[in-house]
């Protein structure tokens, strides 16, 4: 595992860049644990100060130090993304492996449900939830709902791998070695889908954070909780660009692009590492 990691960093430029970008953002987000100010308070600093030695990222019109504000926002958004990714991974692994291995009517029922989740557009549903729950919609509820919509595509991917594994001879050997179905799924098949799980984990984080940003910018989340989206929401509602407080918009956007690009590069490079055919191609180049 470690050597794979080392080789990836050394020989895959995309992975290295992705790791540096994500690493920088994660460290920045972790700084929020040492924040001298509570990021939910407003008017604790001089408003509208440009970046300086005292305020590295400047302050916003609500009198918040943007450095600590953004640090907390990125922490919350990353945690949110990870929560959605973990939850939806659990669903997709369970559904994918079961559906592929057990087959028959279990497979048909699960795939039917899967088809419905694929076809229902998530955005109106999320808006509907916000519409109904309003201020009861905290970020964990949102994560739960998104996790419910974030699994179908990946479950299909895992299922197609599991389907292949089911007919591999070692699976039948495992059956005749007296292993139980859960043991076969967890110990024989899960290692094969782990690479997919990792790469879709990143992609899923991208998707959920992006969706959260969108909802927040439209004002459809709890706006007092600092996240990437709510920072932008306040910046836009204070017409930051028009007023000339450009750093309020530019700095978060740069950080977001860094995060997304980093996560995407990690997902892509891992995907490439998994896919032996594109691996061979690289070898030939």
């Amino acid at each position, binding site marked *: 595992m470690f050597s794979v990691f080392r*080789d990836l960093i050394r*020989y895959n430029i995309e992975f290295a860049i992705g790791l540096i970008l994500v690493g920088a953002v994660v460290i920045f987000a972790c700084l929020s644990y040492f924040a001298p100010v509570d990021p939910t308070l407003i008017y604790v600093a001089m408003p509208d100060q440009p970046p300086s030695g005292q305020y590295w990222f400047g302050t916003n019109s609500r009198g918040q130090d943007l450095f600590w504000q953004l640090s907390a926002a990125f922490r919350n958004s990353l945690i949110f993304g990870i929560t959605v990714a973990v939850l939806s991974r659990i669903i997709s692994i369970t559904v994918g492996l079961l559906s592929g291995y057990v087959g028959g009517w279990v497979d048909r029922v699960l795939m039917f449900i899967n088809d419905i989740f694929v076809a229902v557009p998530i955005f109106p549903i999320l808006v509907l939830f916000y519409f109904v729950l309003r201020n009861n919609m905290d970020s964990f509820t949102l994560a739960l709902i998104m996790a419910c919509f974030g699994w179908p595509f990946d479950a299909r991917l895992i299922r197609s791998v599991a389907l292949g594994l089911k007919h591999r001879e070692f699976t039948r050997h495992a059956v005749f070695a007296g292993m139980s179905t859960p043991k076969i799924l967890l110990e024989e098949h899960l290692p094969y889908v782990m690479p997919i799980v990792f790469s879709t984990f990143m992609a899923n984080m991208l998707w959920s954070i992006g969706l959260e940003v969108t909802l927040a910018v439209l004002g459809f989340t709890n706006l007092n909780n600092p996240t990437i989206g709510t920072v932008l929401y306040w910046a836009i509602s204070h017409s930051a660009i028009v007023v000339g407080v450009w750093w309020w918009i530019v700095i978060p956007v740069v950080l977001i692009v860094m995060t997304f690009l980093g996560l995407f590069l990690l997902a892509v490079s891992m995907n490439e590492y998994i896919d032996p055919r594109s691996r061979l191609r690289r*070898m030939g180049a």
Partner: protein
Amino acid sequence: MTQDILTVDGLKAYYQMNYFGVEREVRAVDGITMTVRKNEIYGIAGESSSGKTSFIKVLAAAIRPPMRVVDGSAKFNFKNGPIDVTTATPQQIESIRWRHLSYIMQGSMSTLNPVRRIGKTFEDFAKRPLAASGTPYRERVLGHLERLKLPADVLNAYPHELSGGMRQRVTIGLATVCHPEFVIADEPTTALDVVVQKEVLGLIREIQQDMGSSVVFVTHDMSVHANMTDRVGIIYAGRLVEEGPTRQMFFAPKHPYTAHLVASLPRIGDTTQRPALEGRPPSLANPPAGCRFHPRCPLAIDKCKTEVPPLIPVANDHRSACWRWQDVGPLVKPHQANRVMA
């Protein structure tokens, strides 16, 4: 006096790979010298990862990285002039493809475009080299299909609608419709059932005789070689270890590996114990010194461990690369054993 159509001289083709920091050089073809004559079927036998597939890739001018020809040459002597496929330009190779040099690939399921009708594939493959269109082209193709005992309506079918035997006959049809001078056949019958296999083999042989072309026939199955080929070459760990007329190879092999391959074939009507060869073929990335077969060879002596035996003539038209070729005798005498049983 027959004339050679292919002359391979000291051919070396290596895979040079560098993947995530692991550098490897696999010497898949390591100094092969041989010739193929006009109007003959030359069989190439070898186990998996013996280098036989890499060898015919070179012959088919399908050399792509990470494989590289390191040394030697492979010259064809076609009607439109000689050509060395290891040094020819892409344009030169383009000019011999299908009209002079064609190829039957293994795995009939994957060699045909799944979303294209057979007729369209025939057009893609044959229209340009045949330099014909309209009625003459159609008649040529239909006539050829009839020759292959294929109904004309396969042209309207998609590959998945045909049985394995039909598909293989279609690929043979594709490879031979332009009457090429040289055909490379890579395990064309391995996946087929015995009855169909024999039919398809017979068909390839018939067409080869009709066209008067040469065929290099690759398979690991010695009993196919016995019935199909005029001469056989045995490849072991990237080298040609023995070569000779098929009959001689089966009844008087002069290399212990060949002798073993022949002896281990079971036969109907014979239940005498068949020997098995233990051990595994060497890794081509790190082959043993000297004769590459020595770790598994029952006849090995110290010399075999250090000195590479040259491929030398041992009988009429028969070459072997073994220091002790004179001590190699057939392990089982087929006819004799048969008579005992009967």
